Protein backbone atom coordinates (compact mmCIF):
# COMPACT_ATOMS: atom_id res chain seq x y z
CA UNK A 1 0.00 0.00 0.00
CA UNK A 2 1.53 3.32 -1.02
CA UNK A 3 1.10 6.68 0.68
CA UNK A 4 -1.79 7.66 -1.57
CA UNK A 5 -3.64 4.49 -0.65
CA UNK A 6 -3.02 5.13 3.05
CA UNK A 7 -4.29 8.69 2.79
CA UNK A 8 -7.33 7.57 0.85
CA UNK A 9 -8.10 4.91 3.44
CA UNK A 10 -7.81 7.40 6.28
CA UNK A 11 -10.28 9.65 4.50
CA UNK A 12 -12.62 6.75 3.83
CA UNK A 13 -12.55 5.71 7.48
CA UNK A 14 -13.45 9.21 8.57
CA UNK A 15 -16.35 9.21 6.13
CA UNK A 16 -17.53 5.86 7.46
CA UNK A 17 -17.29 7.15 11.00
CA UNK A 18 -19.46 10.12 10.06
CA UNK A 19 -21.87 7.83 8.24
CA UNK A 20 -22.29 5.76 11.39
CA UNK A 21 -23.69 8.90 13.05
CA UNK A 22 -26.17 9.41 10.21
CA UNK A 23 -24.17 11.98 8.22
CA UNK A 24 -25.60 11.84 4.71
CA UNK A 25 -23.06 14.31 3.35
CA UNK A 26 -20.35 11.78 4.19
CA UNK A 27 -22.36 9.10 2.42
CA UNK A 28 -22.61 11.32 -0.65
CA UNK A 29 -18.86 11.92 -0.72
CA UNK A 30 -18.07 8.23 -0.39
CA UNK A 31 -20.72 7.35 -2.98
CA UNK A 32 -19.28 9.72 -5.58
CA UNK A 33 -15.76 8.63 -4.75
CA UNK A 34 -16.48 4.96 -5.41
CA UNK A 35 -19.18 5.18 -8.05
CA UNK A 36 -16.85 4.94 -11.05
CA UNK A 37 -14.76 2.15 -9.55
CA UNK A 38 -17.80 0.10 -8.59
CA UNK A 39 -19.44 0.75 -11.93
CA UNK A 40 -16.42 -0.64 -13.79
CA UNK A 41 -16.03 -3.53 -11.34
CA UNK A 42 -19.68 -4.50 -11.66
CA UNK A 43 -19.58 -4.14 -15.43
CA UNK A 44 -17.37 -7.25 -15.35
CA UNK A 45 -20.32 -9.10 -13.80
CA UNK A 46 -23.14 -7.78 -15.91
CA UNK A 47 -23.61 -5.44 -18.85
CA UNK A 48 -26.98 -4.20 -17.66
CA UNK A 49 -26.75 -0.58 -16.47
CA UNK A 50 -29.97 -0.87 -14.46
CA UNK A 51 -28.61 -3.86 -12.56
CA UNK A 52 -25.27 -2.13 -11.97
CA UNK A 53 -26.97 0.92 -10.50
CA UNK A 54 -29.18 -1.29 -8.37
CA UNK A 55 -26.15 -3.18 -7.04
CA UNK A 56 -24.20 0.02 -6.31
CA UNK A 57 -27.13 1.33 -4.30
CA UNK A 58 -27.57 -2.00 -2.53
CA UNK A 59 -23.88 -1.87 -1.67
CA UNK A 60 -24.11 1.62 -0.18
CA UNK A 61 -27.36 0.74 1.54
CA UNK A 62 -25.47 -2.05 3.36
CA UNK A 63 -22.50 0.26 3.99
CA UNK A 64 -24.86 2.85 5.48
CA UNK A 65 -26.42 0.25 7.76
CA UNK A 66 -23.10 -1.28 8.82
CA UNK A 67 -20.83 1.74 8.92
CA UNK A 68 -20.80 1.63 12.70
CA UNK A 69 -19.74 -2.01 12.78
CA UNK A 70 -16.73 -1.54 10.48
CA UNK A 71 -13.80 -2.70 12.61
CA UNK A 72 -11.04 -1.68 10.26
CA UNK A 73 -9.70 -5.18 9.70
CA UNK A 74 -9.24 -4.27 6.05
CA UNK A 75 -9.16 -1.14 3.96
CA UNK A 76 -12.50 0.55 3.40
CA UNK A 77 -12.09 0.00 -0.34
CA UNK A 78 -11.63 -3.75 0.23
CA UNK A 79 -14.65 -3.82 2.52
CA UNK A 80 -16.82 -1.94 0.01
CA UNK A 81 -15.66 -4.11 -2.89
CA UNK A 82 -16.55 -7.21 -0.88
CA UNK A 83 -20.05 -5.89 -0.26
CA UNK A 84 -20.43 -4.94 -3.92
CA UNK A 85 -19.21 -8.38 -5.01
CA UNK A 86 -21.76 -10.18 -2.83
CA UNK A 87 -24.56 -7.80 -3.86
CA UNK A 88 -23.51 -8.36 -7.47
CA UNK A 89 -23.66 -12.13 -7.18
CA UNK A 90 -27.07 -11.83 -5.56
CA UNK A 91 -28.26 -9.63 -8.42
CA UNK A 92 -26.91 -12.13 -10.94
CA UNK A 93 -28.94 -14.87 -9.29
CA UNK A 94 -32.02 -12.67 -9.46
CA UNK A 95 -31.57 -11.24 -12.94
CA UNK A 96 -29.54 -13.95 -14.63
CA UNK A 97 -25.88 -13.54 -15.46
CA UNK A 98 -26.36 -13.20 -19.18
CA UNK A 99 -24.99 -9.85 -20.21
CA UNK A 100 -27.15 -7.69 -22.41
CA UNK A 101 -26.08 -8.21 -25.98
CA UNK A 102 -24.58 -5.29 -27.77
CA UNK A 103 -27.39 -3.17 -29.05
CA UNK A 104 -27.59 0.19 -30.80
CA UNK A 105 -27.45 1.86 -27.40
CA UNK A 106 -24.03 0.40 -26.76
CA UNK A 107 -22.60 2.86 -29.23
CA UNK A 108 -24.21 5.66 -27.29
CA UNK A 109 -22.74 4.28 -24.09
CA UNK A 110 -19.23 4.56 -25.43
CA UNK A 111 -17.76 7.82 -24.19
CA UNK A 112 -17.50 10.41 -26.89
CA UNK A 113 -13.91 11.11 -26.05
CA UNK A 114 -13.07 7.45 -26.56
CA UNK A 115 -10.18 7.35 -28.98
CA UNK A 116 -9.92 4.75 -31.67
CA UNK A 117 -7.06 3.14 -29.80
CA UNK A 118 -9.09 2.89 -26.62
CA UNK A 119 -12.05 1.50 -28.52
CA UNK A 120 -9.83 -1.12 -30.06
CA UNK A 121 -8.44 -1.95 -26.64
CA UNK A 122 -11.94 -2.31 -25.21
CA UNK A 123 -12.94 -4.68 -27.99
CA UNK A 124 -9.77 -6.69 -27.50
CA UNK A 125 -10.44 -6.96 -23.77
CA UNK A 126 -14.13 -7.65 -24.19
CA UNK A 127 -13.43 -10.61 -26.48
CA UNK A 128 -11.04 -12.05 -23.94
CA UNK A 129 -13.25 -11.55 -20.89
CA UNK A 130 -16.14 -13.28 -22.64
CA UNK A 131 -14.16 -16.51 -22.32
CA UNK A 132 -13.74 -16.23 -18.56
CA UNK A 133 -16.01 -17.31 -15.75
CA UNK A 134 -17.54 -14.66 -13.50
CA UNK A 135 -15.02 -15.36 -10.74
CA UNK A 136 -12.10 -15.22 -13.16
CA UNK A 137 -13.33 -11.89 -14.55
CA UNK A 138 -13.65 -10.53 -11.03
CA UNK A 139 -10.11 -11.58 -10.10
CA UNK A 140 -8.69 -10.03 -13.27
CA UNK A 141 -10.57 -6.79 -12.62
CA UNK A 142 -9.50 -6.63 -8.97
CA UNK A 143 -5.83 -7.32 -9.73
CA UNK A 144 -5.30 -5.56 -13.06
CA UNK A 145 -8.09 -3.00 -12.94
CA UNK A 146 -8.32 -1.94 -9.31
CA UNK A 147 -4.83 -3.01 -8.25
CA UNK A 148 -5.67 -5.16 -5.24
CA UNK A 149 -3.24 -7.68 -3.77
CA UNK A 150 -3.99 -11.39 -3.59
CA UNK A 151 -4.78 -11.01 0.11
CA UNK A 152 -7.25 -8.22 -0.62
CA UNK A 153 -8.94 -10.24 -3.34
CA UNK A 154 -9.21 -13.19 -0.96
CA UNK A 155 -10.95 -10.93 1.57
CA UNK A 156 -13.27 -9.50 -1.06
CA UNK A 157 -14.22 -12.88 -2.49
CA UNK A 158 -14.18 -14.55 0.93
CA UNK A 159 -12.03 -17.45 -0.21
CA UNK A 160 -8.49 -18.71 0.45
CA UNK A 161 -5.55 -16.96 -1.20
CA UNK A 162 -4.73 -20.22 -2.98
CA UNK A 163 -8.11 -20.12 -4.68
CA UNK A 164 -7.47 -16.57 -5.86
CA UNK A 165 -4.06 -17.61 -7.20
CA UNK A 166 -5.61 -20.49 -9.11
CA UNK A 167 -8.34 -18.28 -10.59
CA UNK A 168 -5.80 -15.66 -11.61
CA UNK A 169 -3.53 -18.25 -13.19
CA UNK A 170 -6.28 -19.90 -15.23
CA UNK A 171 -7.71 -16.55 -16.26
CA UNK A 172 -4.31 -15.38 -17.50
CA UNK A 173 -3.67 -18.59 -19.41
CA UNK A 174 -7.09 -18.43 -21.02
CA UNK A 175 -6.72 -14.76 -21.92
CA UNK A 176 -3.33 -15.34 -23.49
CA UNK A 177 -4.70 -18.14 -25.59
CA UNK A 178 -7.79 -16.34 -26.81
CA UNK A 179 -6.67 -12.77 -27.13
CA UNK A 180 -5.07 -11.79 -30.38
CA UNK A 181 -1.45 -11.14 -29.66
CA UNK A 182 0.04 -7.72 -29.99
CA UNK A 183 0.56 -6.41 -33.50
CA UNK A 184 -1.92 -8.92 -34.87
CA UNK A 185 0.22 -11.98 -34.22
CA UNK A 186 -1.65 -15.19 -33.66
CA UNK A 187 -1.36 -16.84 -30.27
CA UNK A 188 1.73 -19.01 -30.02
CA UNK A 189 1.26 -20.52 -26.61
CA UNK A 190 -0.54 -23.59 -25.48
CA UNK A 191 -2.66 -24.06 -22.38
CA UNK A 192 -0.57 -24.11 -19.23
CA UNK A 193 2.50 -22.51 -20.73
CA UNK A 194 3.89 -19.36 -19.11
Amino acid at each position, binding site marked *: MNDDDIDADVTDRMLLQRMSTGDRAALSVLYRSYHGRLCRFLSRLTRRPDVIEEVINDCFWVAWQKAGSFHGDSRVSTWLMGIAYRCGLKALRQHGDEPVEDDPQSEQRTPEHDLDEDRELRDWLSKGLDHLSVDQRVVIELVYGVGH*TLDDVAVIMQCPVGTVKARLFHARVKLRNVLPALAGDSPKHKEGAP
Partner: protein
Amino acid sequence: MTFPKHSGRDCVRAWDTMPWVLQDSATPEQGAWLEGHLAQCESCRTEFAQQSRLRQAMSLPTDISLDANVGLRRLLGRLDTPDAQEAPYRSRSRSWLSRALVAVVLIQALSIGALGVKLWSTGGNPAYRTLSQEPVPAATGTIRVVPDAAMTLADWNALLHTLHLQVVGGPNDVGAYTVAPTSSTSTTHALQQLRATRGIRLAEPVAVTP
Protein backbone atom coordinates in the same frame (compact mmCIF):
# COMPACT_ATOMS: atom_id res chain seq x y z
CA MET B 1 -0.46 -25.11 -11.81
CA THR B 2 1.69 -26.94 -14.28
CA PHE B 3 4.24 -25.49 -16.59
CA PRO B 4 5.83 -27.24 -19.53
CA LYS B 5 9.24 -28.74 -19.08
CA HIS B 6 10.89 -26.27 -21.38
CA SER B 7 9.84 -23.41 -19.11
CA GLY B 8 12.68 -22.47 -16.88
CA ARG B 9 12.23 -21.76 -13.23
CA ASP B 10 12.96 -18.10 -13.96
CA CYS B 11 10.07 -17.97 -16.44
CA VAL B 12 7.71 -19.29 -13.78
CA ARG B 13 8.99 -16.67 -11.36
CA ALA B 14 8.60 -14.00 -14.03
CA TRP B 15 5.04 -15.15 -14.71
CA ASP B 16 4.20 -14.83 -11.01
CA THR B 17 5.84 -11.43 -10.66
CA MET B 18 4.36 -9.67 -13.69
CA PRO B 19 0.98 -8.59 -12.24
CA TRP B 20 2.56 -7.04 -9.16
CA VAL B 21 5.20 -5.21 -11.15
CA LEU B 22 2.48 -3.90 -13.43
CA GLN B 23 0.42 -2.61 -10.52
CA ASP B 24 3.52 -1.12 -8.82
CA SER B 25 3.13 -3.28 -5.73
CA ALA B 26 6.26 -5.36 -6.32
CA THR B 27 9.45 -4.54 -4.45
CA PRO B 28 12.20 -2.68 -6.33
CA GLU B 29 14.25 -5.87 -6.21
CA GLN B 30 11.45 -7.87 -7.85
CA GLY B 31 11.08 -5.18 -10.51
CA ALA B 32 14.79 -5.12 -11.24
CA TRP B 33 14.95 -8.90 -11.41
CA LEU B 34 12.04 -9.07 -13.85
CA GLU B 35 13.57 -6.39 -16.01
CA GLY B 36 16.78 -8.38 -16.17
CA HIS B 37 14.94 -11.57 -17.05
CA LEU B 38 12.86 -9.92 -19.76
CA ALA B 39 16.02 -8.62 -21.37
CA GLN B 40 17.13 -12.15 -22.08
CA CYS B 41 13.81 -14.04 -22.50
CA GLU B 42 11.77 -13.27 -25.59
CA SER B 43 8.83 -15.45 -24.53
CA CYS B 44 8.45 -13.60 -21.24
CA ARG B 45 8.90 -10.27 -23.04
CA THR B 46 5.95 -11.11 -25.28
CA GLU B 47 3.93 -12.19 -22.30
CA PHE B 48 4.80 -9.04 -20.36
CA ALA B 49 3.83 -6.87 -23.32
CA GLN B 50 0.45 -8.57 -23.45
CA GLN B 51 0.06 -8.26 -19.69
CA SER B 52 0.83 -4.57 -19.97
CA ARG B 53 -1.82 -4.21 -22.61
CA LEU B 54 -4.26 -6.08 -20.42
CA ARG B 55 -3.49 -3.77 -17.51
CA GLN B 56 -3.95 -0.75 -19.78
CA ALA B 57 -7.28 -2.07 -21.07
CA MET B 58 -8.51 -2.85 -17.57
CA SER B 59 -7.65 0.68 -16.47
CA LEU B 60 -9.94 2.30 -19.04
CA PRO B 61 -13.12 3.77 -17.58
CA THR B 62 -16.14 1.61 -18.18
CA ASP B 63 -18.14 2.16 -21.34
CA ILE B 64 -21.31 1.87 -19.30
CA SER B 65 -22.22 5.39 -18.39
CA LEU B 66 -24.17 5.87 -15.20
CA ASP B 67 -24.92 9.21 -13.60
CA ALA B 68 -23.66 9.09 -10.03
CA ASN B 69 -25.94 11.95 -8.99
CA VAL B 70 -29.04 10.14 -10.22
CA GLY B 71 -28.04 7.00 -8.37
CA LEU B 72 -27.25 8.95 -5.23
CA ARG B 73 -30.62 10.67 -5.30
CA ARG B 74 -32.30 7.29 -5.53
CA LEU B 75 -30.24 5.97 -2.65
CA LEU B 76 -31.05 8.97 -0.45
CA GLY B 77 -34.70 8.56 -1.34
CA ARG B 78 -34.46 4.95 -0.31
CA LEU B 79 -32.94 5.97 3.02
CA ASP B 80 -35.85 8.32 3.61
CA THR B 81 -38.35 5.56 3.18
CA PRO B 82 -36.56 2.47 4.45
CA ASP B 83 -39.68 0.91 5.90
CA ALA B 84 -41.64 1.49 2.73
CA GLN B 85 -39.14 -0.56 0.76
CA GLU B 86 -37.97 -3.15 3.22
CA ALA B 87 -40.89 -3.57 5.57
CA PRO B 88 -43.56 -4.55 3.06
CA TYR B 89 -41.49 -7.45 1.83
CA ARG B 90 -40.76 -8.57 5.36
CA SER B 91 -44.34 -8.11 6.51
CA ARG B 92 -45.63 -9.89 3.42
CA SER B 93 -43.39 -12.84 4.02
CA ARG B 94 -44.17 -12.84 7.73
CA SER B 95 -47.87 -12.61 6.95
CA TRP B 96 -47.71 -15.65 4.69
CA LEU B 97 -45.70 -17.55 7.27
CA SER B 98 -48.16 -16.70 10.01
CA ARG B 99 -51.10 -17.79 7.88
CA ALA B 100 -49.43 -21.06 7.05
CA LEU B 101 -48.69 -21.74 10.72
CA VAL B 102 -52.25 -20.93 11.74
CA ALA B 103 -53.56 -23.26 9.04
CA VAL B 104 -51.34 -26.08 10.26
CA VAL B 105 -52.44 -25.58 13.87
CA LEU B 106 -56.10 -25.54 12.85
CA ILE B 107 -55.73 -28.76 10.85
CA GLN B 108 -54.03 -30.41 13.80
CA ALA B 109 -56.75 -29.26 16.20
CA LEU B 110 -59.51 -30.53 13.91
CA SER B 111 -57.77 -33.87 13.49
CA ILE B 112 -57.32 -34.31 17.24
CA GLY B 113 -60.97 -33.38 17.78
CA ALA B 114 -62.17 -35.89 15.19
CA LEU B 115 -60.01 -38.59 16.72
CA GLY B 116 -61.37 -37.83 20.19
CA VAL B 117 -64.97 -38.06 18.97
CA LYS B 118 -64.26 -41.38 17.32
CA LEU B 119 -62.62 -42.82 20.42
CA TRP B 120 -65.45 -41.56 22.61
CA SER B 121 -68.06 -43.11 20.34
CA THR B 122 -66.47 -46.56 20.63
CA GLY B 123 -67.09 -46.40 24.39
CA GLY B 124 -63.61 -47.22 25.38
CA ASN B 125 -63.95 -50.93 24.54
CA PRO B 126 -61.48 -51.80 21.90
CA ALA B 127 -62.64 -54.02 19.09
CA TYR B 128 -59.65 -56.25 19.57
CA ARG B 129 -58.09 -58.30 22.35
CA THR B 130 -54.39 -58.89 22.85
CA LEU B 131 -52.98 -62.27 23.72
CA SER B 132 -51.66 -60.97 27.02
CA GLN B 133 -55.10 -59.90 28.18
CA GLU B 134 -57.08 -61.99 30.66
CA PRO B 135 -59.77 -64.01 28.93
CA VAL B 136 -63.20 -62.47 28.92
CA PRO B 137 -65.17 -63.90 31.88
CA ALA B 138 -67.60 -66.52 30.79
CA ALA B 139 -71.20 -65.48 30.69
CA THR B 140 -73.82 -67.16 32.82
CA GLY B 141 -75.08 -70.40 31.35
CA THR B 142 -71.94 -71.39 29.53
CA ILE B 143 -70.73 -74.94 29.62
CA ARG B 144 -67.23 -76.31 29.42
CA VAL B 145 -67.11 -79.36 27.20
CA VAL B 146 -64.29 -81.79 26.46
CA PRO B 147 -65.08 -83.88 23.41
CA ASP B 148 -63.34 -87.16 22.82
CA ALA B 149 -60.33 -86.93 20.54
CA ALA B 150 -61.92 -89.52 18.29
CA MET B 151 -65.04 -87.43 17.76
CA THR B 152 -65.30 -86.16 14.23
CA LEU B 153 -65.84 -82.53 13.45
CA ALA B 154 -69.08 -83.36 11.70
CA ASP B 155 -70.44 -85.13 14.81
CA TRP B 156 -69.31 -82.24 17.00
CA ASN B 157 -71.01 -79.68 14.77
CA ALA B 158 -74.16 -81.76 14.57
CA LEU B 159 -74.28 -82.07 18.34
CA LEU B 160 -73.90 -78.33 18.86
CA HIS B 161 -76.55 -77.66 16.26
CA THR B 162 -78.98 -80.10 17.85
CA LEU B 163 -78.52 -78.67 21.31
CA HIS B 164 -78.57 -75.03 20.02
CA LEU B 165 -75.13 -74.38 21.34
CA GLN B 166 -72.20 -72.47 19.90
CA VAL B 167 -68.54 -72.38 20.77
CA VAL B 168 -67.59 -69.13 22.51
CA GLY B 169 -64.12 -70.15 23.62
CA GLY B 170 -61.44 -72.77 23.37
CA PRO B 171 -60.15 -75.22 22.84
CA ASN B 172 -57.72 -74.62 25.69
CA ASP B 173 -54.57 -76.58 26.48
CA VAL B 174 -56.54 -79.68 27.50
CA GLY B 175 -58.95 -79.52 24.56
CA ALA B 176 -61.86 -78.01 26.47
CA TYR B 177 -64.37 -75.80 24.61
CA THR B 178 -66.65 -73.25 26.17
CA VAL B 179 -70.09 -73.37 24.63
CA ALA B 180 -73.12 -71.18 25.21
CA PRO B 181 -76.77 -71.63 24.28
CA THR B 182 -77.82 -69.74 21.15
CA SER B 183 -81.45 -69.52 22.17
CA SER B 184 -83.48 -69.85 25.29
CA THR B 185 -82.38 -73.41 25.64
CA SER B 186 -82.04 -74.48 29.26
CA THR B 187 -78.47 -74.89 30.30
CA THR B 188 -79.40 -77.77 32.55
CA HIS B 189 -81.10 -79.56 29.68
CA ALA B 190 -78.19 -78.98 27.37
CA LEU B 191 -75.85 -80.18 30.08
CA GLN B 192 -77.75 -83.39 30.51
CA GLN B 193 -77.85 -84.00 26.79
CA LEU B 194 -74.12 -83.40 26.48
CA ARG B 195 -73.31 -85.77 29.31
CA ALA B 196 -75.53 -88.39 27.71
CA THR B 197 -73.86 -88.05 24.37
CA ARG B 198 -71.34 -90.58 23.44
CA GLY B 199 -67.98 -89.00 22.69
CA ILE B 200 -68.25 -86.27 25.27
CA ARG B 201 -65.75 -86.87 27.95
CA LEU B 202 -66.68 -83.96 30.18
CA ALA B 203 -69.47 -81.40 30.36
CA GLU B 204 -69.57 -79.02 33.30
CA PRO B 205 -71.24 -75.67 33.81
CA VAL B 206 -68.80 -72.84 34.07
CA ALA B 207 -68.73 -71.44 37.56
CA VAL B 208 -69.11 -67.67 37.33
CA THR B 209 -67.13 -65.70 39.85
CA PRO B 210 -69.36 -63.11 41.45
